[in-house]
């Protein structure tokens, strides 16, 4: 092959390259478009298939074929996008969107999703989360934890001697003679006598709310009582109160973020809605009074019950 034919052939190959064809034609169209567009279609009838739509169509193709589409495979995808858009607009022009409950709900839902995205994506700063954590210590297990022992006096076993028996035992315990035997001194209760550092909600779960409420106020280091619970009477030795400190944000970040968002979700939704609602003047037209039997059968019937079975 001569040098020249080689060059010609290269040019021919190049000219056959679809990419080049696209580029040249596209460039020409781009330059000419301002001149011709108004003759092709009025502005409201212009359809632009965006790069984003193209990308989505390509991605969708990839999901099923696991490869990118060839140009001739891309064309039907583009056509489909165009057809959908054309028919959608024609439908809109005919007013088919109006009075359609599905579309109404769908659009409302999309708006809700937008708010939801705002909530999910508004990544609150650590400072914001820290403030939230400080304001809701009790929700993140940050209350005091108490190391204590308890001796139980069962009212149904001590009867009228309950108070006296308790006072006597208390005096003996604080005399420090070392005689402490839970098996003898404490009545039966399926709850431990000795508690390691325990959070108050866990104390409440095992000994009831009354006991848990009284416990943190007890002095440290000697037996006190009587402390009452739903079970009866207790003598209590608080050994140590590990004061409540908020857990490090790093420790409970997930939970704080979750609760912060749950709280803010309601607020943001409400704020957003009220802002939009304020734009409207609303009047409500009541239907004429219903005929007496209008709701009778429906009322009985619609009060359905869980898991109910087979219809007629």
């Amino acid at each position, binding site marked *: 092959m001569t040098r020249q034919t080689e060059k010609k052939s290269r040019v021919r190959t190049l000219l056959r390259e679809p990419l080049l064809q696209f580029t040249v034609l596209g460039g020409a169209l781009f330059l000419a478009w301002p001149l011709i567009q108004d003759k092709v279609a009025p502005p409201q009838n212009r359809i632009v298939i965006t790069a984003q739509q193209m990308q989505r169509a390509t991605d969708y193709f990839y999901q099923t074929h696991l490869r990118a589409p060839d140009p001739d495979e891309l064309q039907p995808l583009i056509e489909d996008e165009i057809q959908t858009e054309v028919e959608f607009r024609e439908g809109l022009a005919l007013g088919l969107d109006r009075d359609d*409950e*599905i*579309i109404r*709900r*769908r659009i409302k*839902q999309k708006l809700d999703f937008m708010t939801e995205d705002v909530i999910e994506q508004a990544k609150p700063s650590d400072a914001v989360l820290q403030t939230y954590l400080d304001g809701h210590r009790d929700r993140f*297990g940050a209350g005091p934890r108490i190391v204590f022992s308890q001796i*139980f006096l*069962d009212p*149904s076993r001590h009867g009228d001697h309950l108070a006296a028996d308790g006072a006597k035992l208390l005096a003996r315990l604080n005399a420090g003679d070392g005689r402490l*035997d*839970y*098996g003898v001194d*404490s009545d*039966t*209760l*399926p*709850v*431990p*006598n000795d*508690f*390691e*550092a*325990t*959070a108050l*909600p*866990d104390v*409440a*779960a*095992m000994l*009831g*709310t*009354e006991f848990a409420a009284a416990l943190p106020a007890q002095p440290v280091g000697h037996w006190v009582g009587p402390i009452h*619970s*739903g*079970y*009866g009477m207790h003598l209590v030795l608080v050994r140590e109160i590990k004061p409540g400190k908020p*857990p*490090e944000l790093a*420790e409970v970040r*997930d*939970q704080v973020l*979750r609760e912060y968002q*749950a709280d803010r979700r309601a607020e943001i939704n409400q704020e957003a809605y009220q802002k939009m609602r304020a734009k409207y003047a609303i009047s409500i037209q009541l239907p004429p009074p219903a005929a007496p039997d209008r709701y009778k*059968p*429906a*009322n*009985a*019937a*619609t*009060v*359905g*019950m*869980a*898991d*109910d*079975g*087979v*219809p*007629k």
Partner: protein
Amino acid sequence: MNTGLKSALLLTAISVATIHTGRADTIAAKPPNTKDGQPYSIPTAKTHPIRVFWGDAHLHTEFSFDAGLMGTRLTPEDAFRFARGEEVVSTTGVPAKLRHPLDFLVVTDHSNYLGLPVALREGDPAIVADPAGKKLYDGFKQGGEAGFKLFADLAGSLSSNTPLLDTAPLLKSTWAKSVAAAEKYNEPGRFTAFIGFEWTSMPGGNNLHHNVIFRDSGEKALQVLPLTTFDSEDPEKLWAYLAAYEKKTGGQAISIPHNSNLSGGLMFADKTFGGKPFDKAYAEARAKWEPVAEITQTKGDSETDPSVSPDDEFANFERWDKTNIAGSQDDKPEDQPHNYLRPALTRGLRFEQELGANPYKYGLIGSSDNHTALSMVAADNFFGALPDAEPSPTRLNHAPLLVTKGRKPLPPPSEMASSGLAAVWATENTRESLFDAIRRREVYATTGTRITVRLFAGWDFKQGDAERSDFADYGYAHGVPMGGDLSGAHAGQKPTLVIQAAKDPDGANLDRVQVIKGWVDAQGQTHEKIFDVAWSGDRKAGADGKLPLVGSTVDVDNATYSNSIGAPVLDTAWTDPTFNPAERAYYYIRVIEIPTPRWTTIDSKRFGVALLKTVPPAVTQRAYSSPVWYAPSGT
């Protein structure tokens, strides 16, 4: 393996898991300890459980077709937040909060039509594009009778092989949401959010419902979709599904039957779903996949029935014993022994004698089955099982639910029981620890109050052992806890049960502790007997051998009671006087509270409406322990 390779593999695992769960931070189980090495919760240094964890293994949200279509608008996330103790606003706008948060919750939405109410409400394009979906959508939108028709069609289709519409895409996307909610709220050491679903089988309107609970995180649970009854109504197929799950993922899952009381005799039918006699393999599989059963819930109690246990003066408690769950079939007397757990436990012994395995080896739990996303069962804080029964001045008089021509109406909201709870003796509050305790049956049920019950059975216990200060250490060392097995009695030995029971510390005193024994004799005859073993005050058994009732302090007009009767704690060491080492037996504990106002009585007072004559003004709340089983050795 070199470190680089290891971390590359780890990264791959993480990214795969991330795709599955959609949340990178929920993949690895978080360590239950805080960073200074302290347990987050109460001390857990002991290897055996030191406290009960309270929960609900059965709750529906708006994802359930029935709950959602009947108005429930609360989500699984709401359900978990509420159970953890946060305040939420109910579907009907009533603020709700628990007095004591739960320690764990399983959201068990129906797998059939999972997520459909939300899809219909939102006009999900995937659903309304389907003509069948559009029809449902139109019916739903129209409400009234059309809405009811839609609901009835949906419920009815559960018994068919074909759903009314193709729900596969919805099942997948809703399952992902359901799993994500549990992942989000699961906090090892503080609150356990299990992944689960309900498999709602009800051939002919007879209740064969089961709840599936996964031990694992979303990474494993998302490798499967919930089984529906369109796939099969046969519980053996459910077990096959569970087995396949375990094989595929290396995880664990179990299935918990509920509302046997509404099963038309089908739950404990003594033959397979296909009508074949039980064999050993069947019995073993059933005991493996169904280690526990739900004995009490809002739609009635399933312990036993007066017709089955005529000598049991406490048997008539919150019964729903007129029809099956569809109201399509009256309960026949011969079906009742197949509807309740006590007679089933007893017949299980006979099967074990014949087959070498016990198909009805059930531990016992309670749960709510509420369809409001609110797990509330306290009589004085009861939001009903459906939005229709949330607190209102009219709820006591709401009509019977689902009135269908030619069918018996099911009981009205006022006949719902404010029940129940699942109590788990576990070492710590994690999915793994709680699940393992359920699988080994170290669990019990209450009808809504927080009664503590602890039981050990052994050969060497003696008087006084129930009062030891090291009761639990000693009990585990010398016996088996509830849910356990005893065997190998030496000549002359009798089993002794050591029992501690304590009242709800924020509730009513206890009347008595009973041991319920079932056994089968050499002729294959089954027996049951109730022993009063500990009680308050100095009551003595009458000539008929029965302990007098404790009395009642209930002031019906004011809906109050007083703890001036009963005892806060009851304990005993009880040796079976009727023990025959050749006879298989089980023993479970029933703890009875003093009478307290029923929730309807409290409602009458609070709303100033007339007391109902159709329900008792007071009830005796109770706890049912899992049994301990005895088998002769070498069998």
